[in-house]
């Protein structure tokens, strides 16, 4: 059980809050602005959220870009289950989610979006999976939480919400108002 609190926030049942709803709101707007700053418009840039947890983040960014900056952004969802390198290593069968990329990514700038960057293996799988949809001009990575010092592969994000140092048995849990009832990010202690 975790006994200390992070930045004065409450600690409940082995989990401490890392980012509050207000902090997430600010970070999302900053990330949207950074995307806009780098790309200027989204005629040749598409966003692709990774299933299952990167899709909510991608949808939020698209919403901010549309409502606050009048940008129409193409959004797709990519499932990487069949491209993972741990098939048959885990005890359970890996179950897939829906892939929905309703546009061609040939010669486009693709921004891959995931909630937490940990070992980098999911992103490696996503890079391979993307090849089935064409040859993009460039691929960038946006991640809300970047877990530092835990990478297994040489992969770094272009855009990051917050960099954190978490030890291996701790898990970063991202919650969204749409699916989980509130916007919050917790660090959960999993012994």
């Amino acid at each position, binding site marked *: 059980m975790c006994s200390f609190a992070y930045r004065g926030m409450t600690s409940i049942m082995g989990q401490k809050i890392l980012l509050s709803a207000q902090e997430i709101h600010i970070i999302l707007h900053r990330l949207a602005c950074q995307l806009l700053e780098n790309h200027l418009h989204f005629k040749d840039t598409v966003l692709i959220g990774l299933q299952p947890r990167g899709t909510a983040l991608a949808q939020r960014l698209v919403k901010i870009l549309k409502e606050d900056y009048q940008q129409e952004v193409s959004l797709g969802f990519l*499932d990487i*289950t*069949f*491209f*993972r390198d741990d*098939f*048959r290593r885990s005890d*359970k*069968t*890996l*179950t*897939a*989610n*829906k*892939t929905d990329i309703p546009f061609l990514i040939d010669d486009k700038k693709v921004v891959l979006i995931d909630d937490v960057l940990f070992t980098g293996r999911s992103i490696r799988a996503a890079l*391979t*999976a993307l*090849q*089935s*949809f*064409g040859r993009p001009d460039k691929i960038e990575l946006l991640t809300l939480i970047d877990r530092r010092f835990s990478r297994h592969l040489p992969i770094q994000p272009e855009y990051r919400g917050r960099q954190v140092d978490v030890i291996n048995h701790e898990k970063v849990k991202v919650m969204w108002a749409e699916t989980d009832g509130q916007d919050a990010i917790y660090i959960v202690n999993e012994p």
Partner: protein
Amino acid sequence: MSELSVEHLLGIKYLKPADIQLIFETADHFKEVINRSIKKVPSLRDITIANIFFENSTRTRLSFELAQKRLSADVINFSAAQSSVKKGETLIDTVNNILSMKVDMVVMRHPNPGAGIFLSKHIKASIVNAGDGAHEHPTQALLDSFSIRERLGEVGGKKVLIVGDILHSRVALSNIYALQMQGAEVAVCGPKTLIPKHIESLGVRVELDLDKALAWCDVANMLRVQNERMDMSYFPNTREYTMLYGLNKQRLDRVNKELVIMHPGPINRGVEITSDVADSDHSIILNQVENGVAIRMAVIYLLASKIK
């Protein structure tokens, strides 16, 4: 449920409803994969699969092989016609020899009912039954139900008619199990000589008049007349069979409703079904073939994930 309750796919009889649900959900994803410009995923690159066919097959073998290749598995093919089986080798010896070459999964078609079950008790590999005599052909039944679900939204509550040679048909038996497991009602129709005795004990309706049966059903699955399995005369001649049990445009017009027409292939055009019906909008015969690859990818993927 995220994994199958079985280690082998020997028959629909051994599955649970949740297994069928999981296979369908996985097949949905694979159907999307096989419609991409690059239709291949690397999931099974460390798996070797032997397709062992002791009986002729074209589409089932092609469909399995394509499914395996789309999953990046290594594939070896074996057909009994050119093998040592002709020299008197036993089934277990043949398969064990193949398994010595480090094969993880066996897809087998065999003329004897229960061959897959027998093999599963004697060898260490995952087994997929691709048809065992007149017993079961589970992947065909799964792709049939998957195609009905795709066209009609769900299988539960639907009335499905199976027409033709029920007696010799593994497709019929597997379909009966699969459809009933998903809550569909099943009826069979055909000459009395080709309807197995006591089939009602499976909870199946028997109807000898095709027009009445068509008026009852939502889906009609027209089976092939399997001349090669008939060791005696079950009906006077093909022409009479076609008159009584063949599906044609006039018959379909008389029923006057949106029927879904299926056929497991290969079609004897003009015998159990006429060309105008087989090629009409009612027919989902080619969808069945496409779905066959997705379903077999799902089955192989789910079974392979249980190989440790």
